[in-house]
């Protein structure tokens, strides 16, 4: 099947644009960037047509070999990977096309597309990898591209700082991922995904509990980093510093779902580790609620959607944690449709308003940019779970599974669904309805076809994509997950969304004074939420500053320059140049130093003696 071509084509695109892009005409850059991804998509479709019941596995070469450890470069496609492949290459193609229009007036054009293609390469390696270490290559690689693209406007400090934050927070997650892999190899003697999963299933219960729980929780740390879950979600809102197509592709549709993918891929480990599973569910649920609450009060259109992404990812984790793995992947897909659309639509709005991102300076845009308006409303309905839109199906799957697991999770999920509908429509209504409150120099203009055609395609998918029955398709890989269809629960869940929309309409269309009145009444709470619960500030005060200041004052000035060098310089105080050393030797002081060394050695020996040849 030549699976390797699927990631390699974008890699070639990245290399060509990166090395020669500066001297290439725009059309050539576009052609290289877009066609390489579209070709990948077509190859993925071809794989889809040929995929039978057995996974397709291809082995290329040995990457690392040491003793019992062998890590091949090996790709595999089963139905789960297939879904991810199509999402990544499909949405990726649309966003590449869109970006041709969006980035038309930006500097560093070739650089942008080179990074974007490189991202596609790593993301495809991530989903194709047949062993965890190779998956980790993609995992870290997408982190690299995320760093590069968030910091794309590298002249600005806010952009580069956001890039650093994203990479470093993800590194904390990767720490967990790495430790999980080390444990896997210790336990199963291999990092091949099928071997590890088979091993996890075969492990006797008395061993499995502790070991698999540890592996599961460590994987969760990794997933929480990449998929922006509590407590590592803080990088994602800042990541909006990148150009909007990046936010859509990397920070909404694909990369941030990698954590969901990894947990689903490792479902055999999690199903044998109930504690880890419950932790996944609770973290997901908590993230969903918290991010939705913050989203309610954001005024930057991209920030609203960013917190919405965090919240929706929380939903997906909830699905995984309650055992509905295929529902999680289902939501990955529908979310990729409507969230990519929300971001691209937001980009179209920002484009129309010459860079304005604050919804308080928008309003009344529905007649000025009608295509953007219609498509964004479609996305809004989908995320709110309006009946028979894509979000309706996947969200119901998740909520039903949550109810099956423990009813309180269902109710919290329903509440979050209402909040979601509310803040998304608050944002859309403030943008498109009422009077125009901004002060752009030129009248807003609709985006060119190269931008709105992808919007239109995504709108169709957002509305109708739910009919692609992912859970059914994934049954051979992830097992049967469908819960009994309970009409009452579906109605409750759906009405929560509708109520959310209704409240938003009431507060922002019919009675516009209400929001301010509420804000005044609950001033303390309002400020607490408005400032995102002061989480960034708390991290800064509790972790970052102590580490930096401690390193500077205690370790560097104290231990290094003070203590160690104090001793060394004390000994060699009088040595100035080579003559100084000789003088020192003649004065007999070298004995002091030698004595010091011997004493140190004796101390070590005594220490060892006492510890009884410690192992």
């Amino acid at each position, binding site marked *: 099947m030549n699976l390797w071509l699927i990631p390699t084509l974008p890699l070639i695109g990245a290399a060509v644009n990166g090395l020669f892009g500066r001297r290439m005409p725009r059309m050539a850059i576009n052609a290289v960037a877009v066609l390489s991804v579209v070709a990948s998509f077509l190859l993925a479709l071809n794989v889809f047509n040929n995929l039978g019941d057995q996974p397709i596995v291809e082995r290329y*070469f040995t*990457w*690392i*070999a*040491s*003793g*019992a*450890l062998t890590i091949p470069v090996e790709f595999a496609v089963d139905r789960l990977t297939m879904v991810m492949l199509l999402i990544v290459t499909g949405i990726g193609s649309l966003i590449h096309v869109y970006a041709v229009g969006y980035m038309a007036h930006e500097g560093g054009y070739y650089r942008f597309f080179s990074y974007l293609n490189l991202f596609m390469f790593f993301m495809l390696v991530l989903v194709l990898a047949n062993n965890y*270490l190779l998956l*980790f*290559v993609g995992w*870290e*690689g997408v982190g*690299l591209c995320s*760093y590069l693209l968030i910091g794309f406007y*590298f*002249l*600005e*400090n806010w952009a*580069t700082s956001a*890039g*650093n934050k994203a*990479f*470093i927070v993800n*590194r*904390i997650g*990767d*720490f967990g991922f*790495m*430790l999980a892999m*080390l*444990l896997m*190899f*210790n336990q199963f003697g291999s990092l091949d995904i099928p071997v590890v999963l088979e091993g996890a299933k075969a492990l006797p219960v008395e061993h499995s509990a502790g070991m698999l729980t540890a592996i599961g929780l460590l994987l969760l740390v990794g997933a929480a980093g990449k998929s922006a879950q509590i407590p590592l979600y803080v990088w994602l809102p800042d990541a909006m510093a990148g150009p909007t197509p990046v936010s859509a592709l990397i920070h909404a549709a694909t990369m941030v779902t990698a954590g969901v993918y990894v947990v689903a891929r490792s479902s055999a480990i999690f199903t044998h580790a109930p504690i880890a599973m419950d932790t996944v569910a609770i973290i997901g649920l908590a993230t969903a609620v918290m991010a939705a609450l913050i989203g309610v009060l954001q005024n930057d259109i991209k920030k609203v959607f960013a917190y919405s992404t965090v919240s929706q990812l929380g939903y997906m984790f909830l699905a995984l944690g309650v055992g509905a793995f295929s529902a999680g992947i289902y939501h990955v897909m529908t979310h990729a449709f409507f969230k990519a659309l929300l971001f691209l639509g937001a980009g179209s709005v920002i484009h129309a308003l010459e860079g304005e991102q604050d919804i308080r300076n928008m309003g009344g845009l529905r007649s000025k940019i009608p295509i953007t308006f219609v498509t964004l409303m479609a996305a809004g309905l989908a995320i709110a779970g309006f009946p028979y839109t894509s979000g309706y199906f996947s969200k119901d799957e998740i909520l039903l599974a949550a109810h099956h697991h423990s009813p309180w999770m269902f109710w919290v999920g329903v509440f979050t669904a209402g909040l979601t509908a509310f803040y998304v429509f608050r944002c859309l209504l403030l943008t498109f309805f009422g009077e125009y409150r901004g002060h752009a120099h030129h009248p807003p203009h609709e985006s060119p076809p190269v931008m709105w055609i992808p919007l239109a395609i995504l709108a169709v998918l957002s509305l109708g994509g739910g009919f692609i029955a992912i859970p059914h398709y994934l049954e051979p890989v992830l097992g049967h997950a469908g819960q009994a269809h309970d009409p009452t629960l579906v109605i409750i869940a759906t009405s929560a969304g509708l109520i959310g929309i209704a409240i938003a309409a009431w507060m922002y269309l019919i009675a516009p004074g209400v929001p301010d009145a509420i804000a005044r009444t609950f001033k303390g709470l309002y400020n607490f939420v408005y400032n995102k619960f002061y989480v960034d500030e708390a991290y800064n005060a509790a972790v970052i500053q102590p*580490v*930096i200041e*401690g*390193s*500077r004052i205690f*370790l*560097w000035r104290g*231990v*290094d320059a003070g203590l*160690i060098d104090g001793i*060394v310089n004390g000994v*060699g105080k009088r*040595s*100035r*140049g*080579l003559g*100084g*050393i000789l003088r020192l030797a003649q004065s007999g002081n070298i004995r002091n130093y*030698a004595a010091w*060394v011997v004493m140190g*050695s004796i101390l*070590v*020996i005594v220490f*060892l003696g006492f510890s009884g040849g*410690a*192992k």
Partner: protein
Amino acid sequence: MNLLDFVLFAPAAAFVIALLIPRNNPGLSRMFTLGASLVIFLASLLLIGGVSAAPREFRFVTDFQWIQSPNIRYHIGLDGLSLWLVVLTTMLTPIAALISWTYIDQRVKEFYAFLLLLEFGVIGVFVSLDLFLFFVFWEVSLVPMYFLVGIWGHERRIYAAVKFFLYTMVGSMMMLASMIWLYGKAGSFDYGIILDGLRTGKIALTSTEQLLLFLGFFLAFAIKVPLFPLHTWLPDAHVEAPTAGSVMLASVMLKMGTYGLVRYNLPLFPQASRDSAPWIVSLAIIGIIYGALVAMVQPNMKKLVAYSSVSHLGFVVLGIFSFTQQGLDGAVYQMLNHGVSTGALFILVGYLYERRHSLEISSYGGVATLAPWLSTVFLLTTFASIGLPTLNNFVGEFLVLQGAAKANFSWAVFAAIGVILSACYMLWMYQRAFLGRAGESLAHHMHDLSPREWAAILPLVALMIWMGVYSQSFLPPVSAQNAQILEQTKRNVDFRVSNHAIQELGNVR
């Protein structure tokens, strides 16, 4: 005279010739050194085939009596452990010559002569199979580095050079004492004979003796590595050294220490090595975290890279004393990786220094706009250094961590914290020096890479990718030899400890 003799003595011959070049012709000194070191490099590439065919044995051996009494032999050879270290040395010497082309404009002749002498000493260290010969080369390599720092360094060069010299000398003395003690027991300085004697029981050491001898060697190597808390000579030496000095120091001279640990401490004193492993590993892990934390707050680029070396070399020591195949393989691979990527970092910092004449991070900012290729290469090296997969360091770090995890999982947990911190200090430095808007004065100084600069850095960039993507080109001979060393550390123990203990060790690991 075989090929290895040529690779070893060609630098010495070139050193003598370089001294004969007239002082008023610096161009000739440069050209000669570059040409000679390139020839040596190409010759050393021919060694690869011979060693790879049988990496567990010493190849290209020359062995004859050098001094009758005491019994000192000229005995050299090459195996899977030393092969790449020799190639790394021969590769970096022409690179060091290239990057000094305009940087060094005083006493050019002497500078290049010392560079060749340094190459001679370092190669000698890696190929010696006689303890005394090893010691001679160990000291020979010290002298040119002392002068490189002391003559061509920055303001505090004398302080740094003396500190470097003193530190190393203290370690060397202890090592020499241990060697002489061993000679007293074995009647020979020959590595093979001593190893054989220990294995067969002809040379019997009490456990106290073994521990003391172990510590004698260990101290010398630990200072060279440098292992926390013996590292404080390194930042000073790096900051004060000229670029080529920093590169040779970081890339090859530090490896003399880690190489010594693997070559001498482990096989000669297996019991003491295993006994002291937890203590040494603790120091290594402290070094990993401590080095990274202190690197994080350095305002000076070279100091930052120097402290990052302390952190990276901690990984190497951790791998060595994990006594696992993966740990040892990772450690040796990491020696090479560090040589390539940290060498590249020092070269790039040197390029910046040649433009702006400052090592302070705050003197820069916005270099990316002014010198995009320089910045791109620096970014790639940055990511190599922080262990991004597909680049070289990742392979080594992963193997070390896996080895450590096999020995004791908590070691891996602590060591992995270093991986997080490395991202912090490197990315913060990159942000402050390269991103943002460029100031007026910087724009005046900054220009992109020249062809000569490209020629020096490109091989290293290529290696970062090659070693990261296809480690099979490099790892098999290393792995084969490490398996043997690991075998030796088990084999030599058995006449001193019960079989039960060995089995226990086997089970735990």
